[in-house]
């Protein structure tokens, strides 16, 4: 029974880790992607928060059940002898349980992160400078410019290139500037 619970815990941990590792691996920056790879990544990432949360609960329950406690002994002599024999395996088992539960908890946390935004932080409340304030943008720097006859916006490449995209509006039209 215990062996089966251990196996189940190992499988749950492996599935949870694979669930988040596969899309990270598929969408590597300097590797080619197929449409199928993008589709798989989308499906895995969409379900990742739920799958990893369930995995975390299952692994926590299994770990609680498998958590080894020192045996109770009738005589002091028996206890001393037994302790020597069991304390090491007991610590190893506890360590393994902590490791597996932590790994699954880690996947549940990662599933709620956007690691691409760790590399390139978003700029949700994008600030725009009025003419004359942008004195630190060189005249030779390329900008993405957009104008509607009344309003005009310029996105210096070195700024937009970092964030990759900025949600904003031009006049009343909601736009997303991308680079």
């Amino acid at each position, binding site marked *: 029974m215990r062996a089966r619970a251990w196996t189940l815990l190992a499988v749950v941990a492996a599935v949870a880790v694979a669930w988040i590792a596969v899309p990270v691996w598929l969408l590597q920056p300097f590797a080619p992607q197929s449409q199928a790879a993008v589709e798989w990544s989308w499906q895995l990432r969409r379900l990742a928060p739920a799958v990893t949360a369930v995995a975390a609960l299952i692994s926590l329950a299994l770990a609680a059940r498998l958590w080894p406690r020192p045996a109770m002994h009738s005589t002091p002599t028996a206890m001393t002898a037994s302790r020597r024999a069991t304390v090491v395996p007991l610590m190893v088992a506890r360590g393994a349980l902590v490791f597996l539960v932590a790994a699954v908890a880690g996947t549940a946390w990662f599933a709620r992160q956007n690691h691409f935004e760790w590399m*390139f932080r*978003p700029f949700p409340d994008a600030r725009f400078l009025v*003419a004359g304030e942008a004195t630190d943008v060189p005249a030779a720097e*390329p900008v993405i*410019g957009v104008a509607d006859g009344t309003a*005009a916006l310029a996105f210096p490449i070195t*700024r937009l290139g970092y*964030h990759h*995209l900025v949600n904003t509006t031009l006049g009343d039209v909601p736009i*997303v500037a991308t680079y």
Partner: protein
Amino acid sequence: MWSRGIDGRTLQFRLIGINNQNFLMEDLETGSWWQQTSGEAISGPLKGHRLTQVLHDEVTFGLWQREHPDSRVLGLDARQSRIDSDWEVGTAKAPVVTPVRADDLLDPRALVVGVVIGNEARAYPHDALGDVRVILDELGSTPIAVLRADDGHSLRVFSRSLDGQTVNLLERVGATPARYLDGATGSEFDFTGLAVAGPLAGQRLTRVPHVSDYWFDWRHSHEATTVYRPWQPTSGR
């Protein structure tokens, strides 16, 4: 540059991944993934939908300010986040992951101006532009001109059809700001496509959207693209 409105609702986007060295964005409303270069949703509930492109420019800040003195400019975030101005140089050294074909006419990292009219796509290599300020061409039976400004970098594409006539532009050498002459009427156009002098004064050429892209990426997303080749004298035989 895309409109965020689709089917009567407004989407909010965030960076979500990369697809063949081109970034993917996700809309927070449906969780669909969109390809930045094409504006097409490639995964998720809105798969197959396309965002509407907003006509935009990729020009130098100096030129933009000259044309739009009241333009607002994207500021820096609290962390002063930006890429180095030579980021592109580093990026250009990164290996290309899409297949390079034996019949490829250009280096994968060659910069091109990509234009689509109707079903026809054509790439204008920056190298072909060389030092010239005007390329006259015809694409999808539309006469077009690729114009370069006097800063040497800013490019725009225009239709050369004006009131049923075709204007044949040539560079007014040495003019700053840049001016382009119509050979037939002697009218003078500026870089916004407006005729500023001559019989056509006040008329405006229609902009044609274009993208600046690496050849590998343009080729990947436009399978049937042709490549513009400047006319060159053949060796006398």
